[in-house]
């Protein structure tokens, strides 16, 4: 069943075409990796899906309905959650309170603070932050704050989760742990995941399908093996065709 459809989506910033005629189909339950050089348009893509910006052209269908132009909170209530590349914790609130916000406001909202607290505690355990639950969010390490981003997004009970470079800045051990956690969450919560990553190994291991963006255009789409072998992709990344 197709969950997310992008039809000829494009957006301009001033004179620059940040995204140019991008089309994409995502089936429920997939993990799709998005890769591309900096400035390729990856985060812009997430921005459009999550509602922070309106596409200049094209349609974005979630569960069959057009969501382009809706505000981010409305989109979240439809079932899409995202993390931010540069983490945005609610610094003065505790880790648990951060996650409670997601529980209180996403889809199928918790109405009471008490219910949200229970849900938040459970999610923190899944994500491995249970020990830090009562610390102020600002006190976490970067790896911890990235997990918090994921936990918060998860608390909104999404069907589609957009992960934006959650592994940036992590050590190889941390990367492996994050990769395993994402796999686990994907299974336990029946999620569909779109994941942007520069950490190639993790991306290739997680994504069953990879999409490559370059200068706002989708230049390739396929399995990790196909992408790795694609001369087009190699040229975009390395600047010359492989011998």
């Amino acid at each position: 069943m197709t969950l997310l459809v992008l039809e000829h989506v494009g957006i301009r910033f001033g004179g620059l075409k940040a995204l140019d005629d991008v089309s994409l189909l995502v089936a429920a339950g997939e993990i799709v990796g998005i890769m591309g050089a900096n400035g390729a348009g990856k985060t812009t893509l997430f921005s459009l899906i999550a509602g922070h910006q309106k596409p200049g052209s094209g349609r974005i269908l979630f569960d069959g309905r057009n969501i382009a132009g809706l505000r981010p909170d409305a989109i979240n209530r439809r079932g899409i959650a995202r993390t931010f590349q540069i983490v945005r914790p609610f610094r003065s609130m505790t880790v648990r309170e951060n996650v409670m916000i997601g529980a209180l406001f996403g889809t199928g909202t918790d109405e009471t603070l008490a219910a949200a607290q229970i849900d938040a505690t459970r999610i923190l355990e899944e994500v491995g932050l249970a020990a830090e639950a009562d610390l102020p969010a600002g006190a976490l390490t970067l790896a911890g704050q990235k997990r918090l981003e994921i936990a918060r997004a998860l608390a909104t009970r999404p069907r589609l989760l957009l992960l934006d470079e959650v592994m940036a800045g992590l050590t190889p051990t941390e990367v492996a742990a994050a990769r395993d956690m994402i796999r686990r969450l994907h299974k336990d919560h029946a999620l569909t995941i779109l994941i942007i990553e520069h950490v190639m190994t993790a991306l290739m291991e997680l994504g069953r399908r990879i999409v490559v963006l370059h200068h706002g255009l989708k230049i390739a789409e396929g399995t990790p093996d196909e992408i790795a072998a694609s001369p087009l992709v190699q040229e975009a990344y390395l600047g010359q065709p492989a011998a």
Partner: protein
Amino acid sequence: MTGPRASSLAIYFAAAAAMALLPFLAGTYYLGVGLALLSWIALAQSWVLLSGMTGYISLGHAMFYGLGGYLTVLTWQQWPLWISLPAAGFAAAVAALLLGWPVLRVRGPYFVILTYGLAELMKFVVIDIEAKLGKFGRLLMGAPSLETLYWIMLALALVATLATYLVRRSRFGAGLRAIRENEEAAETLGVPVVRFKLFAFAASAFIPGIVGGTMALRTAYFEPFQAFNPVVSFTIVVMAMIGGSDDAPGPILGALLLVVLQELLWVNAPELYLIILGLALIGFVLFVPDGLHGRLSRKRHGSDGRSRERPREHPA
């Protein structure tokens, strides 16, 4: 988010009881001071609903105070009080809704200056209207007694304090605080940011509208320069900064301190009073941004071994 401590609630009740007994114990002068104290508590609590919770610092709350006063004065002896006062509140709230739509899109220091500018604009518009009507200050005949007004103000202060207390512990309040911490992240997590901000704005205007009306009756005189005086806005902000703008006890503390200061200084040295207020604003913003209540509650939580919250930064 812990439950209420018995000692805190006891303090609230004691304070409310003390204020309720005042008319029976005190003479006219101190009853007047009590009235002033209650009015500031009501104003500061309402301000905290918006600015404390969301971080959108309003420096123009005098506009709701003045608007409510103006409406009450205009309908004096035409509408009974139990209609005109709530109407003043609703008018202020509606004004906030209408103004809030464009105004709340502006952030940080822009919002601060904008609210200041709006209050001033409203002041000059009312001055102009009054001038066209040929009125230069209005006298009110047959205003209610000080004691009646006192009871009204006590009710307002209680409602405002209760509102802040409840909101702070509600889902709505959690959403507002998320907006304060990081508006974009909050919106991404499903917090209906636009709706919540508007509602907080309107809610924060309602009681000040009624307080304005009540105070107009207290002085039995309405004059736009006084009713829309920016010093009112300024005083509210200083009270909340000194007392604490995160929870209900803060404004009470702040109002108490400032009324004491006023009593000591206003008659003989009004400039000194304002100088101290200005210095207090600077000092507290820099060194005690949580206000006194924030500091005290952090110390308390710290010794309990529970959540040690970092001081909240005011995005003014």
